[in-house]
């Protein structure tokens, strides 16, 4: 599955590259938890929108960040994401719903 398939399924807005492989999912707003437990190639659902989200995602090797609850990132964050070749999706759904959809999509 690639990021594009996730977008199709969630019906989200997108910033960035959509061809990266997505192999699993992780949902959390505590950055240290994400760093410790999310795996390479994860789709990460969160309500955090600040610039450190990009740093964490890059560090872990997250394939796509899904910002939930209709939140959006500031331009400087998007700029950083572009620099790190990171993809951000925006969803109006809660992190719970997004996680459910990802699960149905086959991500474990």
């Amino acid at each position, binding site marked *: 599955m690639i990021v594009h398939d996730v977008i199709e399924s969630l019906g989200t807005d997108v910033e960035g590259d959509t061809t990266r492989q997505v192999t699993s999912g992780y949902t959390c707003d*505590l*950055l*240290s938890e994400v760093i410790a437990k999310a795996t390479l190639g994860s789709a990460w659902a969160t309500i955090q929108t600040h610039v*450190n989200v990009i740093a964490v995602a890059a560090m872990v090797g997250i394939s796509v960040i899904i910002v939930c609850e209709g939140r959006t990132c500031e331009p400087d964050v998007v700029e950083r994401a572009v620099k790190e070749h990171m993809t951000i999706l925006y969803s109006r759904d809660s992190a719970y719903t997004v996680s459910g959809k990802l699960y149905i999509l086959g991500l474990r």
Partner: protein
Amino acid sequence: MSLEQSVEALRYLGLFSNLDASSVMSTAVYALHPEDRVAAARLLMREKSISGVPIVDADFRLVGLISVSKIIEALADGRLADSVDSVMTHDVISLHAHDSFETILSSFQRFKFGRFPVVEEDGKLVGMITDTDVLSAIIRSFYSVYVHDQRRTITLGSFSALSKEFENSAGFVYDISCTGLENAGEGSARLKAFLQSKGFSESVVRRASVCAYEAEINVCIHAGGKGSLRAIAHDGEITVRVEDEGPGIENIDLAMKEGWSTATDAIRELGFGAGMGLPNIRRFSDHLVIISGKDKPTKVEMIFLESKE
């Protein structure tokens, strides 16, 4: 390890460098005046279970010391009723209040005495140091050294607690300088790229960079954003050292506990300060040494072994 080597190890590791004579000594000191009787000294030693009594003048300046052996001599000579100054040692070896921990240890080693009076610049007696005081100070101090290693003692005892190589050459050097959390993580991102370029396996690179990230974030959140991130990487081994200029970790045992944090609410709202930083570092590193203390710089050194994958 000989005492001499131990002193050298202490100097090298910077361990106990925060301890000077004034922080090691006992301040509850029993002293006598030169005109007091030897019998009084004998009584005092017996009552208080001490093996030596400092002798001071009216201004509390150290003028001598009377030890158990001197009392025994006086007993044998039938001089218990004489004044203390006729029996005491006059040229006493004393320590100064600001003498370093190494100086204290060296004095014990050199003079083989059981106790040393501690004086201030003007010669006034301010305390005594016995070997028990030294031991207590070391034990107190260990609250500010954390070693995550099954071989805790060996690690500390064999100099490897903080690797020497950093003194001369580190393959990777990054000056941490962040205001707020904007640039936090920049150093560890660069470290990750550096380690990848060195051909290390993906998982060991991940462990090392995740730990470096946590340590870097700690510098940004807790240490005013000023510090350094350095690494040495070769032969399947990555050593990462993160240092800052303080204010230090007051209680490392607490800081190692999951969920314990001193971060502010504003920091927590950003998803930091969950009290997982150091626990994560412990979890992902193969060896970990933290040296810190209240109002001290913090040094975190982590070793990652490719063979542990």
